């Protein structure tokens, strides 16, 4: 009897063990499979997508059709699993000054004889700089204008860093010095189509600049408009804590009499404009035209509206709109990472004008008085799809050489061993994401779809793309050029651009924590390679 019972108990234990294994086994396997190597190159990440799909360019909401899966799909990251056994001490000064030849260590990887290293993609090294400055980054406790203390990072002792002013066509040279930011830093020129070597993405276009190191960025500010700069090393943390600033490129002829920057940033949850809590006052006399350049450095979009006068939205993402008409009682949504320039003609009676940025405060334009009443957010929102009038865009998007789908979803799984609900690109989770491959001169169309449950501000480095349609509705207004595009949940956008800036470019969500959760892909030109790696001794971590 006892023996039977013991046998029964043993059988029971075996069944229980098998059941436990059936539950935990697949999970353990998935967990193990998701672990990233210590060091890897973005070139080895995911699978190549050559965009040679059908004319129907995929289908948003379902499985994207016709992706050219390269053989790299199976081999994702396998080759790069070398791993560093702990890195000793601090980084030495960052090498890789723009212009230094890094050697074509990675050239000849797969294709073309004309393999080009990202470090060779630079502005004319013989041309002298027109605008030159040094930005020194520190980790420190600093004071906002209102006296609140923030534990974060500064550039030249302040956050936001200095506003960099340049005139269209000038060559800007910025030397970045890291005095005391322990994780290393970089600077990315958000919205400026810089040469790839100056793009400032740690692990892709350069190594993070360690303490005591420096790096020089050189680029021609070829487009007048509003831009910003920020660290692209551990960006979700470093941007939030202050490594950012505004860059204004003025047109050769200055049209607006009054020109103000309004950089929105939250420090420790406190909303500021240009680092100030409350209103920023700008003097503007009756009858004068005033341009307010709103820069959203945050991870979520924010509405902007104007009280006291009609306004025109004259530029988006550093590009002037064509014949924008006056509007009133209408809000403009400013994408995370995006910019919106609003222009107001000051009322003749001398009354002030309030430019609301996401709430009661913002910029107050005035002369005799700055006592402008706050008004609630208007119910209507300006639709850029039909704002302004059409103008030639310089290429034919219907004759596209490449058609890509960037379809954003979400599902449970493991990301580098962490369980959670993670973003997917075309159904795959990071790092198994597409590498969009193009050749110089290609006309590229991309359909960005989103059914992930949340809105995503998608940012393509190094290029401006024009919006063709949203969820099937064609754009009929001014050409709407973007570098940061808010793709709402359930929407899809068709955008197009000319691949005219060789390199390896990030194409990611500018809700920076989302990027660190894997919502990142890259645009890669045929024959361009990078010697830099994510992770490794320099501890490159772009997101």
């Amino acid at each position, binding site marked *: 009897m006892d023996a039977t019972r013991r046998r029964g108990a043993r059988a029971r234990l075996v069944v229980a063990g098998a059941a436990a294994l059936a539950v935990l086994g697949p999970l353990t396997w998935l967990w193990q499979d998701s672990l990233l190597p210590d060091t890897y190159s973005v070139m080895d990440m995911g699978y190549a997508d050559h965009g040679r799909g059908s004319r129907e360019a995929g289908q948003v909401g379902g499985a994207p059709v016709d992706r050219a899966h390269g053989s790299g799909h199976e081999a994702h990251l396998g080759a790069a699993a070398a791993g560093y056994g702990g890195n000793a001490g601090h980084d030495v000064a960052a090498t890789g000054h723009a212009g230094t030849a890094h050697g074509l260590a990675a050239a000849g990887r797969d294709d073309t004889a004309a393999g080009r290293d990202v470090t060779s993609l630079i502005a004319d090294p013989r041309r002298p700089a027109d605008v030159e400055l040094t930005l020194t980054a520190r980790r420190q406790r600093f004071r906002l204008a209102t006296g609140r203390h923030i534990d974060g990072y500064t550039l030249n002792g302040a956050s936001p860093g200095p506003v960099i002013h340049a005139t269209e066509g000038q060559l800007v040279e910025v030397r970045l010095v890291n005095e005391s930011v322990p994780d290393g830093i970089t600077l990315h020129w958000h919205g400026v189509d810089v040469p790839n070597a100056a793009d400032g993405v740690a692990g892709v276009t350069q190594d993070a600049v360690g303490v005591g190191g420096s790096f020089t960025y050189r680029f021609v500010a070829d487009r007048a408009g509003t831009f910003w700069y920020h660290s692209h090393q551990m960006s979700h943390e470093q941007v939030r804590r202050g490594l950012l600033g505004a860059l204004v490129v003025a047109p050769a002829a200055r049209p607006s009499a009054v020109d103000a920057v309004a950089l*929105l940033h939250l420090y420790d949850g406190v909303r500021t404009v240009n680092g100030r809590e409350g209103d920023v006052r700008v003097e503007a006399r009756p009858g004068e035209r005033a341009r307010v350049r709103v820069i959203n450095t945050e991870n979520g979009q*924010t509405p902007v509206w104007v009280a006291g006068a009609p306004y025109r939205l004259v530029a988006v993402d550093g590009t002037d709109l064509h014949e924008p008409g006056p509007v009133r009682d209408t809000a403009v949504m400013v994408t995370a990472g995006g910019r919106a320039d609003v222009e107001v003609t000051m009322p003749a009676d001398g009354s002030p004008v309030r430019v609301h940025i996401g709430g009661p405060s913002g910029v107050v334009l005035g002369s005799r008085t700055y006592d402008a009443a706050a008004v609630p957010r208007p119910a209507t929102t300006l639709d850029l799809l039909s704002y302004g009038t059409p103008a030639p865009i310089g290429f034919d998007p219907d004759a596209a050489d490449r058609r890509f789908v960037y379809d954003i979803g979400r599902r449970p799984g493991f990301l580098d061993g962490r369980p959670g609900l993670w973003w997917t690109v075309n159904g795959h989770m990071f790092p198994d994401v597409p590498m969009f491959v193009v050749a110089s001169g290609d006309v590229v169309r991309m359909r960005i779809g989103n059914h992930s449950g949340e809105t995503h501000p998608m940012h393509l480095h190094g290029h401006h793309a024009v919006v063709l349609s949203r969820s099937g509705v064609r754009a009929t207004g001014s050409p709407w050029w973007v570098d940061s595009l808010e793709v709402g949940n359930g929407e899809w956008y068709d955008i197009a651009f000319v691949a005219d800036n060789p390199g390896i470019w990030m194409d990611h969500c500018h809700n920076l924590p989302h990027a660190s959760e894997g919502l990142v892909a890259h645009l890669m030109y045929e024959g361009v390679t990078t010697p830099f790696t994510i992770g490794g001794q320099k501890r490159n971590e772009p997101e």
Partner: protein
Amino acid sequence: MKVLYKVLAYLVAAEVAVQAMAVVFADAGMGKWVEQGGVLDKAVMESDASPFPEAIGLMIHGMNGIMVIPVVALLLLVSSFFTKIPGAVKAAGLVLLLVVLQVSLGILGHDIPGLGALHGLNALLLFSSAVYAAFRGRAAAVTAPARHDARVRSVG
């Protein structure tokens, strides 16, 4: 194993209570903050820093709901395989099923707020099922010796 099973079952129930408390704590804090002039938009919502201290309730709710409770429910199911409590596997399976449903409703609720209401209702079902699962342990503790006695008697 029985003790572990019971502890895990009660832990799920306790976690559901924590979830309810955390989310109302955050909601109340947000209301007070807006009352005092705070403005909530997507930029504030997506900011990592808390604009008001009670926002930590939302973080707790998210972490607990997506990570901790599913793991506990999974361990509850695994532990149920090893207990001899009648109906334990079924009860633990029900708990896990309701957890999966709860997480799904929580996430889809961002999109379709009506599902958020079901999220609240399902929380009560989940709490009840976790307590029910824990009570299976108690019931077994009472009935098992009785059965043992019966068996001894039949042999004798």
